[in-house]
Structure formats: structure tokens, C-alpha cells
């Protein structure tokens, strides 16, 4: 067990240190001259048009929902994939049924236009 956890913990610590240093180094080394104009959001030279924290297209929300359903499907298939040979025909039929149910869902999403962008 230790021969797996030790390298992973060391990797996490060293990677966090390297990335943390890269993120903070210009705060330590760089100049600091903040002005009001500099602090504005960059909109190609036009005066900033207010906060960006507002509404955006609901279509992205739909993508997130579809992702959730299908990605959980993929994750649920992993245990079966590892035990594919020992689960045999019965396991195959059950998994195909599971995939078919989600396939119907995908066809539904396709038909109502959830996958279209215009």
C-alpha cells in the first residue's frame, strides 16, 4: 500500500508547490501600479459595460445536464468492462439493456433539438 500512496502524496505535494510558486511568483517579483482605468474589465478599448456576472444562454445548462446523465452512464459501465469476461452473456445482455435505455434518452434529446446550435 505504501508503495502506491507515498509516490502519489509526494507528487501532490511537489506539484502543488511548483504550481503555487508559479501562481504567486509575479506577486512577489512584479511591480504593483494599479490605476482605475487599468482595473476596468478589458473590452477592446471601449468603456466597460458593467459586470459580466449576469445571464447567459440556457443552452449551456442543457449541455451540463446531458453531460451529467451520459458521463455517469460511462462511469457505471467501468466495473462491468473490467469484469466483462467473467460476467458472460447475462452481464452483456443487462449492460446492453442499460445502454439501450440511455440510447433512447440520447435519441430523445436529439429529436427535441437539445444537441442543435444555431
Amino acid at each position, binding site marked *: 500500500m*505504501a*508503495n*502506491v500512496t*507515498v*509516490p*502519489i502524496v*509526494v*507528487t*501532490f505535494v*511537489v*506539484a*502543488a508547490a*511548483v*504550481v503555487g510558486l*508559479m*501562481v*504567486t*511568483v*509575479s*506577486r512577489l*517579483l*512584479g*511591480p*504593483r501600479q*494599479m490605476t482605475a482605468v487599468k*482595473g476596468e*474589465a*478589458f*473590452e*477592446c478599448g471601449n468603456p466597460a*459595460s458593467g*459586470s*459580466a*456576472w449576469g445571464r447567459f444562454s440556457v443552452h*449551456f445548462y442543457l*449541455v*451540463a445536464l446531458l*453531460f451529467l446523465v*451520459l*458521463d455517469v452512464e*460511462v*462511469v457505471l*459501465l*467501468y466495473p462491468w*468492462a*473490467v469484469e*466483462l*469476461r467473467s460476467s*458472460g*452473456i447475462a*452481464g*452483456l445482455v443487462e*449492460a446492453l439493456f442499460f*445502454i439501450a435505455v440511455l440510447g433512447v434518452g*440520447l435519441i430523445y434529446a*436529439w429529436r427535441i433539438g437539445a*444537441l*442543435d*446550435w*444555431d
Partner: protein
Amino acid sequence: MSSELVIGAVKAIVVLLLVLNLTALLLWFERKGSALMQDRVGANRAAILGVGRRLGLPNLGLVNTLVADSLKLFTKEDFVPAGADRFLHALAPFLALFPVLVTFAVVPLGDVIRLGGRTVELQAAPLNAAVLYLLATLGLGVYGVALGGWASNNRWALLGGIRASAQMLSYEIAMGLGILSMVMTYGTLDLQAMCRAQGGVWLGWLPRWGIFIQPLAFVLLLVAGIAESKRVPFDLPEGESELVAGYFTEYSGGKQAVFMFTDFAEVVLVAVLLTLFFFGGWQVPYLYSDGFHLPGGFLLALPQAAVALLGVVAFFVKTLVFCCFQLLVRWVMPRMRYDQLMRLGWKGLLPLGLINVVATACVVVLAGGVG
């Protein structure tokens, strides 16, 4: 026992250093390669005390891209817009690069070596569920870009961040399905075991590499991998002609460097995944644990250390080939439109991935296994 721990820690640090250096080298290749493709000279000025010129060496721009560029970025002002969320603004680049770097802990770089009566796996963490670890860290990558776009409080950055997260989520499913087919083929989640299964030959001459039995999964993983690393032709989140710079519009200095570094670390990661799943990882064709067995019946005996070394060299050669391939794709493909991108992901790769998974499962169960 304690020497095992030391070996583990040393392996972890060596792997990280290799990845960081390879990524930096790709930054150089991107700049100098761009110049080559566009018939320019490219970076060729900076030198340290003129050492290279005194020795009569051509200036390849290594000092420019690796020393001067990073020094410049790290000494720039760490600028945060007035309206931004300061904490998330700093957290985002960290969350982008960190998961990519830690993924490499489970990548097998070679077979085993024998050190003073001890057998050492050339893999930082010999994890038996390496594929699950891989999927987990790959999935975390989306937080960095989504948060970066959100925290900046800039319309361009927000658009880039949302585009990037929708794109990465869409292609992650295709990627997961591609990897799922490979898990079925080898019946294991252990990357080292997958590489071992790709040793040997079919028909007396064809290496038992994954590409020959899962070509469709290779295409899925290649396309989805390039989309995950947000490179041309899938660089809409950055789309400099429409979105300024996308999710890192409001970043400068070291944080900007981290986002740039992430892109190239992801290129290395995709190259490593393609090598591991489809091109035998560290396997050299016709090389077995006691030497080369060539198809004509020739035998060239080699010591075990030489075999292990050849394996590591083969792994890096294959990885470099795929890194260069991904960088060269930039010069032959135009950027896609967003609706084309989503159509390819949802209506192209996803159904293809499902079909591939079902076909693989049927072949493995009904025909009693592949290969």
C-alpha cells in the same frame, strides 16, 4: 521498507521533472516550429554571455523561449481587475495545471529494472486502478478554465470560460467511451498491465498494439484529446480573433504562464495516453525480456538493463511523435465553428463511441476475447 519509500518518492519527483521539462521543450518547439512552418527565422537573439556563438553553435532560440520568456512573465505585474473575485482569480490557474501534473504519477515509463536484488517498476505509483485515477484527474481540468472565466468578471473571459467548459464536458464523454473500449479489450484498469498485454506479435510479425484492434477508439481518443487540450481546430475558448484571449483575457504574469503551461502539459498527457493505450507504451516491436526475436527467427540477446532502457527510450520517442503531431495539426486545420464543434462531439463522436463499446463487448464476450 524505508528504502522502498525513498525509491517511491524519488520516482515521483523524477516523473514530475520529466513532465515539466518536456512541457517547456514543447513551448520552444511551438515557437520555433511556428517560425519553420511560416518560413520565418523565429527566436534567435537571446544568449547567455554569448556562449553559444563563441563555440560556433547556431542559436536555436532556446534561451529566448525557456529563459527570457519565463523571466519576463514572472517579473510582470500580477494584475487582477478591480471587479474580479481575487481568491477565485488566483485559484483558477492552480486548478488548471495541478490535476494535469498529478496525472503523470500513474503513467508507466518502462518495464521493471533490477536494483541490487530489488525489482523496481518504472512507474511512479503502481496503482491497480490507474485508469480511474486518470479519469478523475482529467475531469478536474474543467474547473480551472470555468473558474478563470467566471472570476475575471469580464464578458470575453466569461464567454471563453463557458465555451471551454461546455466543450470539455462534451468531449469528455467521447474520451471516456474510447478508454472504456480499451479497458474491455485488456480486462484491466492497470496501465502497466495494459502495456504488458501489448507485448508480442500477431501472425508472426504484427506487434500486438491496441491500434490494430481498436482503430475507432484511437480516433475517438485522438480527437477528444485535442479538444480537451483546447488546441486548433478546437481552440474556440481562446479564439483570439473573437474573444481577445478567452478565459485568460484578464490574466498576466505568472498566472498567464500557468495557463499556457497547462495547454502544453495537456498535449504531453494526450500523447502519453495515445502511446499507452494504442502504441504499446514502452513496448519495442520484437523486443522481449531476453532480447530481440526478429520475424526471420533471428535472435539478438540483450541484458535486462538494456531491454528496460530501450523500453523507456521507445516510450519517449512515441510520446514525442504524438506531441509533435498535435503541434503540427495547428498548421493544417482551420478553427471550427461552435455549432460544428458541438455537432461533432454530440452527434459524431458520442454515437460512434457507444457503437464501439457495444461492438467491443459483443466481440469479447461472444468470440471469447480479442487477440
